[in-house]
């Protein structure tokens, strides 16, 4: 370990973090194996990261956030197996490791089905809008534009209802997608359990948490690869993306109406401008290309003309008598 890092204000964050995590780790293993508790290693790394985050330069923050986030997956998987290890080593633990494994894997599958698995949350992140998005959107439009225009407020409220329906469809699609991911995760856990049991049968040991973690990654990736190539998954994925985009488009329309009512530039207007600008640019480029081609043609004609002139002039010089005869 290196000493204190000056870039972090001279404080030995690394040392402090290690001491803190050592203490918390010891606490974690001492837990009752039968009780699923929030993983203390995960909580510890979160606590540590909150402490050092502000001291990390912006340049390095994103990469370290990823590191911390994905370390949680390691802690999560390790936490599941630490309970088995602790139970096996306890005086009452007995030797029935298969029963302990089955029990722990069953608890893990239950967590996945209940959508409490942190890795599953990570996979869904990009497709999730904050739960209060629609509520905030509605609040934004509580001042309906054009309220003084008879009939308009009614029309606007109908659009709000359409938005609510689209939001609901998105929620259904998200739930559907989440269920398919959870199913895959359960398939991966079944596969992991089988692989561990097979190791026992083959007399092959698992010598580190990391080895177990890598096995879990392998099982998860293979289960995922099988799932994503099914038509069912492609349909669910398409439904989720389309539902989210439909909702976004609808909200944009509402925003545009509000902006238009305030006599401000709208997205539709900007689109129109950008399209016109691109068309004009194409026109200019075509004109420039035509200009270049014309200039080349003109140069060619000039060269041809010049050579004709020279030829004529040369002919005149070589046959001076002809002109004389003609005149």
């Amino acid at each position, binding site marked *: *370990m*290196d000493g204190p*890092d000056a870039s*972090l204000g001279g404080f030995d*964050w*690394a040392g402090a973090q*290690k001491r803190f*995590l*050592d203490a918390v*780790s*010891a606490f*974690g*293993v001492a837990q009752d194996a039968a009780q699923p508790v929030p993983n203390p*290693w995960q909580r510890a790394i979160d606590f540590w990261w909150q402490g*050092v985050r502000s001291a*990390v330069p912006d*340049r390095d923050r*994103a*990469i*370290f956030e990823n*590191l911390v986030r*994905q*370390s949680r997956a*390691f802690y999560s998987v390790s936490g599941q*197996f*630490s309970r*088995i*290890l*602790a139970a*096996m*080593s306890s005086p009452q633990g007995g030797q029935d*490791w298969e029963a302990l494994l089955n029990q722990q894997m069953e608890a893990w599958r239950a967590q996945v089905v209940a959508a409490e698995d942190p*890795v599953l949350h990570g*996979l869904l992140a*990009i497709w999730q809008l904050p739960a209060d998005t629609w509520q905030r959107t509605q609040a934004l439009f509580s001042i309906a534009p054009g309220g003084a225009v008879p009939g308009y407020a009614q029309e606007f409220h109908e659009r709000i209802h359409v938005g609510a329906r689209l939001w609901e469809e998105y929620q259904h699609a998200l739930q559907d997608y989440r269920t398919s991911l959870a199913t895959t995760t359960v398939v991966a856990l079944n596969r992991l359990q089988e692989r561990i049991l097979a190791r*026992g049968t083959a*007399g092959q*040991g*698992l010598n*580190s*948490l990391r080895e177990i973690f*890598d096995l879990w990654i392998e099982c998860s*990736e293979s289960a995922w*690869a099988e799932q*994503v*190539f099914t038509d069912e998954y*492609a*349909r669910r*994925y398409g439904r989720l993306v*389309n539902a989210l*985009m*439909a909702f*976004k*488009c609808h909200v*944009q329309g509402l925003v545009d109406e509000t902006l238009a009512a305030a006599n401000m530039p709208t*997205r539709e207007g900007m689109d129109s401008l*950008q399209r016109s600008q*691109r*068309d004009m640019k*194409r026109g200019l480029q075509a004109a420039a290309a035509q200009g270049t081609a014309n200039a080349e043609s003109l140069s060619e004609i000039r060269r041809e003309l010049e050579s004709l002139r020279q030829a004529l002039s040369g002919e005149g010089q070589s046959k001076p008598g002809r002109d004389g005869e003609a005149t």
Partner: protein
Amino acid sequence: MNPFAITPEAAVREISEFNAKLAQGLNTIGRLGGIEVGTSPRDQVYAEDKLVLYRYRPRTESQNPVPVLIVYALVNRPYMADLEGGRSLIQSLLDQGLDLYLIDWGYPDDGDRYLSLDDYINGYIDRCVDAVRGQRGVDRINLLGICQGGTFALCYTALHQDKVSNLITTVTPVDFHTKRDLLSHLVRHVDVDQCVEAFGNLPGEVLNWTFLGLKPFQLLVQKYLDLVDILDDPDRAANFLRMEKWIFDSPDQAGEAFREFIGQFYQENRLVKGTLSIGGRPVDLETVTVPVLNIYARDDHLVPPDSSRALAGCIGSSDYQEVEFPGGHIGVYVSNRAREMLPPAIGRWLNERT
């Protein structure tokens, strides 16, 4: 036999060691400072809108007289081919005596939303080709396309063959409906028109997540655990950070071009069906008669080998060669093996045809 050969104490020790490495990593990354990429000396020779055309300074006394224009994909940034000194495909190609030009597409913004494939292929690429031809005083140049840039270079060759001497495609999708094409499978039911309507330009972040989601456990989880293992080695950590910078440096995609590419290539597979038109001109691959070198990656999870190899049955060229690289999509550009194998193969192939 009980396979769990781990005591609780060993488990705690392992986690503690992991934590120590993680904390040490913060110091290592902090000390590395800014990560530099794309450092090979080069000069800007043409610019238009966000696009910049560069010429790399030669590293050999004499060069192949026919310049090579590298057409990169619109996805991610072209410095992947020039990550760092000693780990640069660009430098290895320069060492083969090639006269290299590269198109950097830049970062499209809202003003580029209506850029179409016609603008990219018949516009930008054509003007870059003309700029290179004009600068080097040659009628025809060589094209080297990377991934989607290979598809663009192929379409360009079909439309402007009089300006192309030889075509090299690398990990280039041609048939978008092969069995193991996961990207194509994923977008089959996506309403791309609605996506573009919702986003305008497609955010690079969304595209990035889509790519990472093809192998999420390896690319989003395990990779970072592997990083923790190497964080005590500044050189390896720096290499990782360079790749990381490249992976997450994802320009937004011009909306109209994205709509056309996903719709006409990925969803409708028009390129191999012979029904593709760009700028109102049909793209008929059978008219491609220039020599073609097609490099594909055996373990490519983004562009399956079959998708690239379909090129053989589509073009009219009697001079067609394939090179299989034993690795993945990115490995073609950044691995030691690729640098040892591909630049000499490309240099030799071009020299034989110059």
